[in-house]
């Protein structure tokens, strides 16, 4: 299996505090990789370092490498706008902008300098379809996206990411603010999307990780304790710590 993301000895410091203690992971393409672990274990920090979201936080120092398609994303001259188009992100709280559904989804395209109306229309439709929300919103693309339900807003956010045709989609607890039905629908969408996209998701919900992911990495205290196929992690983990965590003994 080809890996698309490779991190080597990735260390991240908030001030002097080391939050990631040298993470080396290879994430396979077109699969769902789940990052699990107790609060404060560094899984979200790691996720955010995959499209340089941590750049926005003061006092962060990063060493080691993160390569996506063999390109070091922390190399000087990296085009961050382009990086974030290739590596999109969906957050815990659905965060559509307070403007129309159409404008939300086409936002990234305009940022990328695409002006052809026909192309934008086509991409908006394509993305909304992939996010399984087209049928619901096709007749009200000009309505404000914040008027939709939480689950629908999250789909708009997924469509917004898809519009720029990324290779990787990062998801930080994408369903934890949603009701069970919406969460289940998003999970199904994620599985479908993983045929064409690489998805890396952080989740507190171990059952979710077991249900939808192909690979699972357990983070504890800024380190990866175990990283393997999801079925192995949940049925026959090698480390006692993993077994204890998934059995709810700690965390």
């Amino acid at each position, binding site marked *: 299996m080809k890996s698309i993301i490779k991190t080597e000895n990735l260390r991240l410091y908030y001030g002097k505090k080391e939050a990631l203690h040298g993470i080396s992971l290879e994430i396979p393409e077109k699969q769902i990789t789940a990052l699990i672990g107790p609060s404060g274990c560094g899984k979200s920090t790691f996720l955010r370092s995959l499209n340089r979201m941590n750049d926005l936080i003061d006092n962060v120092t990063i060493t080691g490498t993160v390569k996506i398609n063999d390109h070091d994303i922390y190399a000087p001259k990296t085009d961050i706008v382009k990086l974030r188009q290739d590596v999109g992100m969906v957050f815990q709280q659905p965060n559509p902008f307070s403007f129309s559904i159409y404008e939300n989804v086409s936002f990234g395209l305009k940022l990328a300098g695409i002006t052809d109306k026909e192309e934008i229309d086509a991409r908006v439709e394509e993305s909304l379809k992939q996010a399984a929300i087209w049928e619901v919103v096709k007749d009200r693309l000009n309505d404000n996206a914040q008027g939709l339900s939480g689950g629908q807003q999250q789909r708009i956010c997924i469509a917004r990411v898809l519009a720029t045709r990324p290779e990787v989609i990062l998801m930080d607890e994408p369903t934890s603010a949603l009701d069970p039905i919406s969460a289940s629908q998003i999970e*199904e969408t994620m599985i479908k999307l993983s045929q064409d996209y690489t998805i890396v998701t952080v989740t507190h919900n171990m059952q979710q990780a077991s249900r939808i992911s192909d690979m699972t990495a357990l983070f504890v205290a800024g380190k990866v304790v175990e990283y393997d196929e999801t079925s192995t992690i949940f*049925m026959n983990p090698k480390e006692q710590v993993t077994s204890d965590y998934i059995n709810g003994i700690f965390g």
Partner: protein
Amino acid sequence: MRGIFLDEMKKLNLRYITMGINVNEQIYLATKSYIEHDKQLAKEVIAGDEKINDEEVQLEKDSLQLMALKQPMASDFRMIISALKSSSDLERIGDHAASIAVETIRVKGNERVPKIEKLIAEMTDLVRNMMEKVLDAYAKDDIEIAKSAAKIDLEIDIKFVEARKEIIAEMAKETEVAVANASYLTVIRLLERIGDHIVNLAEWVVYRNTNKLVELNPGKLDRDVAEKVVDGEKLDQDEMKLVKEAEACAQPDENL
């Protein structure tokens, strides 16, 4: 998510039904080889048992994985548990079929008793009829079909007692067919055991659909009734009812 899970459940169900059909075929071929004294066919049945065993392992793996990773609840949970438990019975039925095939090879060349072989053929027909009904019940989620399949077990038990008595009578008068007779006893016992395993399959269909763990095999009562029927003893009302039901249920279903 639900849709994807249901696809996996469908696959599991299909695997179960396929295994059931293959096991039924094994019973058919094993008894055919036995009655027709076909050593070559018997060898094929014995080799075929390996495939059944592999199917069981795969079914178990799939069930365990679904339970460990997908958190099935309520009817989904029961569906997986019943497939998992039933697969053990199916596998054991397959073993019994292979044992009948082994008897074919063991007895070949010895003098036979056509009268008893005819009884064995009839017993086989009942067993296969019962098996087909239970698979039908599983596929249709129909507990009535499952219960009626289980009732056929009494017919099989009656046939078993009848055959056993015939065999013993033959043993008493003809020493030349001793080898065959000993083998007949083994084969009818195997067929009778297969019937009991099929009752278990029916019980899992009931559990799957109702969450009730039932005992469809009346056990000793069945055996007592079978003895009485064969000896021509008078049956009480309840016993008579059981026999009548078993007869009715054993009528072949034209649709299968």
